[in-house]
């Protein structure tokens, strides 16, 4: 991992606004992540969690505000978005593996074409990573031959192969069968243990409680409440947070 210049925050979001047509999805988001910090975003569907992650990765143009990664403002005009995205990995709910490529090629594509690694170097690195998640022997398979949990772990490794400073996880277990959730969360747990800075949108409250340094509750495009997980889940300050958590408990997810 690259050293941070002068201890700058890994990620700082200031006054972020984002609308889709007339619908304002993000209404002024302020959030800061320290190096090696894991922050979980919780909130009901449509609260803006995914949009926020997509904005941080510049997959969505923002309407107002600033996003600063390790001291560099990535929302400045004329910035090379391709360079920025190398430093920020994102993993999607639907895995989004490339179906026409083998597992190995999925992981090697960006290191080869973006970082300019030779095929041999990229493959060595990819096999190392795949070995860590126990999928090295699946490297010649195509994604549709893998289980959902395996696909999602490959997607995580594909993002890790770019050695990002920051990893964004967008409800990465929501599309998985319950028995496959654990294998993916174990990998994330391991990454957190190794000091990866992560911003995680999740519906897995018990996981958020266990892994997050801080939890943010998003509601109607705003961060309504930020607290350490113990506080957030046992004594939320806001009425809206309490209602949300009650619903989650009623649904048996905490």
């Amino acid at each position, binding site marked *: 991992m690259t050293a941070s210049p002068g201890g700058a925050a890994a990620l700082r979001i200031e006054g972020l606004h984002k609308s889709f047509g007339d619908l304002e999805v993000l209404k002024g988001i302020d959030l800061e992540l320290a190096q090696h910090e894991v922050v979980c975003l919780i909130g009901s569907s449509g609260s803006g969690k995914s949009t926020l992650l997509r904005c941080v990765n510049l997959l969505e143009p923002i309407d107002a505000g600033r996003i600063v990664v390790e001291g560099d403002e990535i929302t400045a005009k004329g910035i090379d978005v391709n360079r920025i995205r190398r430093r920020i990995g994102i993993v999607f709910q639907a895995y989004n593996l490339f179906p026409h490529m083998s597992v190995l090629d999925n992981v090697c*594509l960006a290191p080869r074409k973006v970082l300019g690694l030779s095929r041999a170097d990229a493959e060595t690195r990819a096999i190392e990573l795949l070995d860590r998640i126990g999928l090295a022997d699946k490297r010649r398979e195509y994604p549709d031959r893998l289980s959902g949990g395996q696909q999602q772990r490959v997607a995580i490794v594909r993002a890790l192969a770019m050695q990002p400073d920051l990893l964004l996880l967008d409800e990465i277990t929501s599309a998985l069968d319950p028995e496959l959730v654990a294998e993916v969360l174990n990998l994330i747990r391991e990454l957190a243990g190794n000091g990866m800075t992560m911003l995680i949108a999740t519906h897995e409250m018990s996981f958020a409680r266990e892994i997050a340094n801080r939890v943010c509750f998003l509601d109607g495009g705003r961060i309504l409440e930020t607290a350490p997980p113990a506080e957030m889940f046992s004594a939320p300050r806001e009425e809206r947070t309490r209602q949300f958590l009650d619903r989650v408990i009623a649904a048996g997810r905490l």
Partner: protein
Amino acid sequence: MSMTGGPLDTGDLIGLAGRGGPRRSRRRLPPGEAVRSSLIALVSTVLVLGGLAIVITSQPNWPQVQRAFFDGQIFAYSLPLVIEAFGTNIALFLLAEVLILVVGLAIAVVRGLPGPVFFPLRLMATIYVDFFRAVPGLLIIALLGFGIPALDLPGVPNDQFFWAVIALTLVYSAYVSEVYRAGIESIHWSQEAAARSLGLSRFQSLRYVIVPQAVRRVIPPLLNDFIGLQKDTVLVSTLGVVEIFRESSIIKAARFNFTPYIAVALVFVVVTIPLARFVDWLVARDRAGQASNR
């Protein structure tokens, strides 16, 4: 093919339908049942086609028709000649197809460029496609094949074969670009999001992620256009290029007999049908693959 799996499926009888859709429903039949329905299909086909042949050939005017269209001697004489001339058609459609696949893809990509900066390019590509799909191919061939050599411009080739290839390329690239475009648009945006999020440029994500998937999806319609192109190479005969149709017309005029045309038809059938069956097979395989993914 509307007769999927029916007992009269001629594709099965001549053994060309291969592993396509029609067979799948058949596998479920017990062996005895399968043999029985094959026999029924065979007998019924022989009866229907044989009966038809008897009815037609027993018509009072049949000898006249036979002399004009099915003269065995003239057929034997013209077949090697038209096959030789078909070499020109093969050269035409192979050269044109290579160019079409490249130009068509380029146009499809240009039409998909986002943002106001590329508006003029998008506009030009759209006008191109609209124009060349609207104007009859024969007209383009005549315009370029007669028109440009007539100008006798310095440094511009006067060869009519050359302009025929260009004309076919211009016309078919318009169609093929639409096929590509449909394929590109059928790839879910999340694939591009995944590629771009890894730091790949827009061009790189097209090159390595979007287009390879799109092309795979549109191979059947691309092959259909290729079959159309093969047949349309006979339009080039209007320029005086001696290809299969021109050659057969020369024989026809010399012998006052249409049998050479039958020979030409046969050549096209022999070349096109295997390709058409191949397309059917690809489509069926594709469908089976998609079904297993769900």
